[in-house]
């Protein structure tokens, strides 16, 4: 029984982090129609910045705030000075579909290798702000600790805030309109470029948060967020790339799937599980769960 509870709880807390990554990816996808692989680089870069802040101030919370803010700034800079010029340059030909994605892949490599040059490639670690000893349930220690609980709380609050932002504010409406139809948004006087940069800023902030919440359980090194990016991507694809809600649902499905297979089968089967989950969902709905796409005949 405690194994079941553990599995459920760890599903939630890992799903929460996947959700941050998948939301960030979906946000950028919807506004820019590109899969931002550089997000893994952004997330780990902001975490390195957070690491430096901890070295200077000793405070995880200040580091968290700085990481989130710098994530927003970095995200905005990448859209304004990297993505926008690329889109302007490459407008025709078959390469125009692939070029932006490939560019983000290149950017990922640049960010990660720059981190290696500046900070070095040795493993660092960030300590969690609260205890990572498992809770005791009925005298047994389960694999769920205070930090996991904190992650759940922070992410839930973040989701609520984002939800309010998107559904109830003017800028949120502008974001959604620009994502659904850039042309109609422009014709309504919305500065679509600026709005899109704002979307990237939020995405950057979300991935910055994800980094600071994820790393304390693991090690910090330039490639530390690669796996999380893959999981975030899988979660986003499962949910259907066009839906923020789908991103969260996909993250939860992935979280549960991975957690249960890890608890009941083995650690090794983790990635194959993710792959199988993905293939199953896409076989039934080639565009993800919440997509409108119907099955096309093969």
């Amino acid at each position, binding site marked *: 029984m405690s194994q079941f509870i553990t599995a459920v709880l760890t599903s939630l807390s890992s799903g929460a982090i996947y959700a941050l990554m998948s939301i960030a990816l979906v946000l950028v996808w919807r506004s820019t129609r590109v899969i931002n692989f550089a997000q893994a680089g952004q997330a780990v870069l902001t975490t390195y910045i957070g690491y430096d802040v901890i070295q200077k101030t000793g405070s995880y919370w200040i580091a968290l705030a700085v990481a989130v803010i710098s994530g927003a700034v970095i995200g905005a800079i990448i859209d304004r000075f990297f993505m926008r010029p690329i889109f302007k340059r490459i407008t025709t030909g078959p390469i125009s579909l692939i070029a932006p994605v490939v560019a983000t892949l290149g950017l990922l490599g640049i960010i*990660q290798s720059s981190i290696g040059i500046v900070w070095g490639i040795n493993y660092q670690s960030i300590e969690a702000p609260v205890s990572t000893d498992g809770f005791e349930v009925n005298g047994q220690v389960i694999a769920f600790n205070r930090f996991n609980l904190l992650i759940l709380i922070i992410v839930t609050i973040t989701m609520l805030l984002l939800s309010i932002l998107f559904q109830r504010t003017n800028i949120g409406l502008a974001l959604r309109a620009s994502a659904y139809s850039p042309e109609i948004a422009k014709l309504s006087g919305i500065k679509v470029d600026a709005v899109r940069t704002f979307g990237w800023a939020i995405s950057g902030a979300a991935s910055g948060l994800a980094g600071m919440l994820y790393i304390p359980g693991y090690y910090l090194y330039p490639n530390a967020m690669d796996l999380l990016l*893959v999981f975030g991507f899988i979660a986003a694809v499962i949910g259907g790339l066009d839906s923020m809600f789908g991103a969260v649902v996909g993250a939860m499905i992935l979280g549960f799937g991975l957690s249960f297979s890890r608890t009941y089968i083995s650690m090794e089967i983790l990635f194959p599980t993710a792959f199988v989950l993905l293939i199953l969902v896409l076989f039934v709905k080639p565009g993800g769960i919440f997509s409108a796409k119907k099955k096309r005949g093969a």
Partner: protein
Amino acid sequence: MLSMTPSKKRLAIFIIIGWLLLLASDRVGPLRLYQGSYIATYTLAVASIILLTGYSGQLSLGHGALMAVGAYAGALAIGKAMLHPVLGLVAAALIAGLFGLILGFAVARLSGPYLAGTTLALAVALPTLANQFDVLGGQQGLPLDVGSSPEGFGEDFSQYKWYFWICALAALIMIWAIANLVSSKYGRIYRALRDNPIAAELSGINVGRQKVLAFAISSGAAGLSGALLVILLGGVSPSAFPLGVSFFVLTGAIITGLYNLKGVILGGLILVALPEIADALASRIGGSEGLTNSLPDFLVSALLILAVVFTPNGPGKIFKRSH
């Protein structure tokens, strides 16, 4: 001079290139032979991506996994089943091709980011599977010794020359096959798939089937290059094909120009030369360990961005004759 059909011309060119390479292998030292083997192998991998992404328009982020399939198949065929290297390589290509056929069928309905995501997941998932099965050697992997050159070649035939012959010839033959494929009506079919699948379907092309076949052939080629790598490395293990390999060969394909095969050897050259240049640069600058380790990636990534922005259709255009 007899006028030759394009395909005969192509065959002649490849035969001449092959013959020149074999001649050259007598005249260069073991280091160059070793590098040459790697160049041939990576060129083949790049060619497989050009076929899949450049021609049939399917973006794969998981070619490392397909190379791994060929690698393990080759190690098993030559190492365990004691097949002759040539047979073993053919087996590796076929097995990888079969795997690609199944995979291609599973992803035939997926497009763009969905396909990319699935191949990405595969690239991460597949290597760890090898840990599970003892027959695949678990975490240690499988060793492979392809042996030395046959008796008939004489005493002076060095190991490296043998490697080079195997890699260069295998790559040459497979790339020739791919070149023939894309110059035939299939090339036009693939381009139609890539640019306008709806129109292609309407004009009678079975889009699904063609996509799957392209995937299978590309996988076979990638598997072959994986098997060649295994020969060069002397073995295969789960850690031989991390996610980075998929990005690495995709980068080579983009830099060399995705949309035709004409500059493909440039891709292999860059993928082998750049890390070496970066190493030399790093030790010249005398930086930290971080610098030495990260500079190759930095240069490759920078080159990728420059390539995709400034020569989106590939520098191969320089070599291309006008159509």
